[in-house]
């Protein structure tokens, strides 16, 4: 038999993640994860990287935080390492220098957004002989190895798109292009949440279909014993939980919350935050 199974976090890891054990509140961890994934996504766009590599990177990134605390590694470095590793896995390797430049730009832009309003952002390219380049390069190499090591060298990832197409066909919804593209959008947004590291693909796809069809008012059989998600072996509680993760992404954050997240990109920032917010 082939070992083509993808690993999922255990209940214990989900309820009590390493960052949580180190004192990072659940909501803050969720926001930091989402922010790290956004950076991966933005870097992917700037580098014109293939979507499969970006999605794979985001899933590896999410898995990582079920085995490692953000006190130990920063979300910026790990995101960069995840995109680097995933690009190799998907046979579209990135040049180290390009990736480092793009992350440098994204980090500078993030730092700028913390400054008082009004000033326009101007990127100052770094020198290849300066410390920044070497520091980032070092961090990148370490992050790549740490990802592999901490994920137990299991880097198999299953993306949801093929499953979505199948399910839409089975539900006779292929004709509803609005529903297909909306569900597709939810699946992409879900890449910013931990769900791909904690729920099977059929549950996540069912959640995306549920959100899309509810939003568009498309009726599907939903009263027991005739529930459409049973067709895909998805449990209602799980589907609903995944919907919750996705919907929380769209919740308005206060300016203060947003700034707090942007200010916690590195493990140093995280450690400072933990000291300042230590329960007394």
């Amino acid at each position, binding site marked *: 038999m*082939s*070992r*083509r199974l993808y690993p999922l976090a255990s209940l214990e890891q989900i309820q009590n993640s390493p960052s949580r054990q180190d004192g990072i509140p659940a909501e803050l961890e969720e926001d930091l994860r989402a922010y790290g994934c956004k950076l991966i996504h933005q870097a992917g766009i700037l580098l014109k990287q293939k979507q499969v590599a970006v999605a794979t990177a985001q899933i590896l990134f999410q898995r990582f935080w079920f085995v490692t605390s953000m006190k130990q590694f920063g979300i910026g470095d790990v995101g960069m390492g995840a995109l*680097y590793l995933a690009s*190799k*896995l998907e*046979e579209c390797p990135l040049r180290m220098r390009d990736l480092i430049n793009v992350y440098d730009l994204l980090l500078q832009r993030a730092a700028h957004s913390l400054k008082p309003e009004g000033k326009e952002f101007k990127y100052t390219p770094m020198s290849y002989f300066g410390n920044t380049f070497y520091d980032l390069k070092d961090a990148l190499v370490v992050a790549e*190895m740490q990802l592999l090591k901490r994920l137990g*060298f299991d880097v*198999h990832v299953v993306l949801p798109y093929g499953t979505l197409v199948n399910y839409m066909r089975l539900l006779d919804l292929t004709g509803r292009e609005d529903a297909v593209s909306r569900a597709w959008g939810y699946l992409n947004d879900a890449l910013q949440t931990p769900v791909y590291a904690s729920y099977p693909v059929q549950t996540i796809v069912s959640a995306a279909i549920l959100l899309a069809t509810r939003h568009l008012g498309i009726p599907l059989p939903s009263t027991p014993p005739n529930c459409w998600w049973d067709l895909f072996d998805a449990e209602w509680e799980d589907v609903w939980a995944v919907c919750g993760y996705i919907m929380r992404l769209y919740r308005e954050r206060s300016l203060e919350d947003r700034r707090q997240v942007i200010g916690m990109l590195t493990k140093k920032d995280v450690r400072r935050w933990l000291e300042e917010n230590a329960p007394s």
Partner: protein
Amino acid sequence: MDAVEKANLERQKRWAKERKVGEGTYAVVYQGREVGTGRKVAIKKIKVGAMKDGLDMSAIREVKYLRELEHQNVISLLDVFSSKTNLNLVLEWLETDLEMIIKNHSLVFLPADIKSWIAMTLRGLEFCHRNFILHRDLKPNNLLIAADGQLKIADFGLARDFADPGYKMTCQVITRWYRPPELLFGCRYYSTAVDMWSVGCIFAELMLRTPYLPGESDMDQLKTIFRALGTPTEEEWPGHTKLPDYVPVGQFTKSSMRDLFTAATADCLNLLSKFFIYEPRKRISARDALHHPYFFALPNPTHPSKLPKISTQPSSRTLEEVDGNVDLDSPGPAVKAPAPVPNRLKRKLSSVSSNQDGRETYARRLDFSQ
């Protein structure tokens, strides 16, 4: 130290490195042991030293694919651990490879032996293909042989997923002598058929005891192929003249396989020719090859434990065993051993002066770097 570090350390302690046995393109290979059981293993330490681009793509592919594949005829990855900045793959220990066996001219192959090796190769490969993995570097020295005679496909450093059809891939894969013409013509959309061509080359090499299509350059490789198999016509291989690197290399007529593979049975030649079908889509698949009459006709494939192997001891094969394997009505064993076989029921030649170590003078390792 957190839980992950502890687990890694535990894993690391399970394996002991003993001595260096070889050096590959991206790794140093050690012989080692499983501490608890004393079982011999190979530990492949990936060089990350220079670290120009982080971890090597080949190492990453090898981990990715071997983790997914578990089959009797595919090398098994027993464990992976890291030490400081190094990545270590623990693999089952495999004594020799098919290249060493082919080149050891003190060994005589019976038709049943060849059938057995090819069947094992096809079984391992069929499993890879069924799991949407292309090997892309099949050659005798990547077919390793375990102590019990089982053949294992190894070296997945060039392997690739092909679940996504119509995906552009590099044509700079597969060591030249085993590389199919579509790759030599620069085809970027290819599939399992590339591995099947390589199997054909290995099959032929087992019978000839020397490489079947040894080209000296990429251009010469095409000529060598066409000289042996005839220049393909548009009918035989529609569209090949439109491939990116197509160049006419001359008109050759097919030379008779029967003349070269004098001892092969009709079934054997029929299967062999199917590996060399020019049009990739028509080339036989691993699955169909395993269902070919060749594998159902006598002689039955030799049991792996009874296959010729390199050892210092004289062959222990009994006459009965050999008898059962030889089809006495056939024109003779499909072996074209370089030296005359004094008695075809005798396993070991008595008068082998050189090559006791299975090594020959000409270089077999081909460059990949161009």
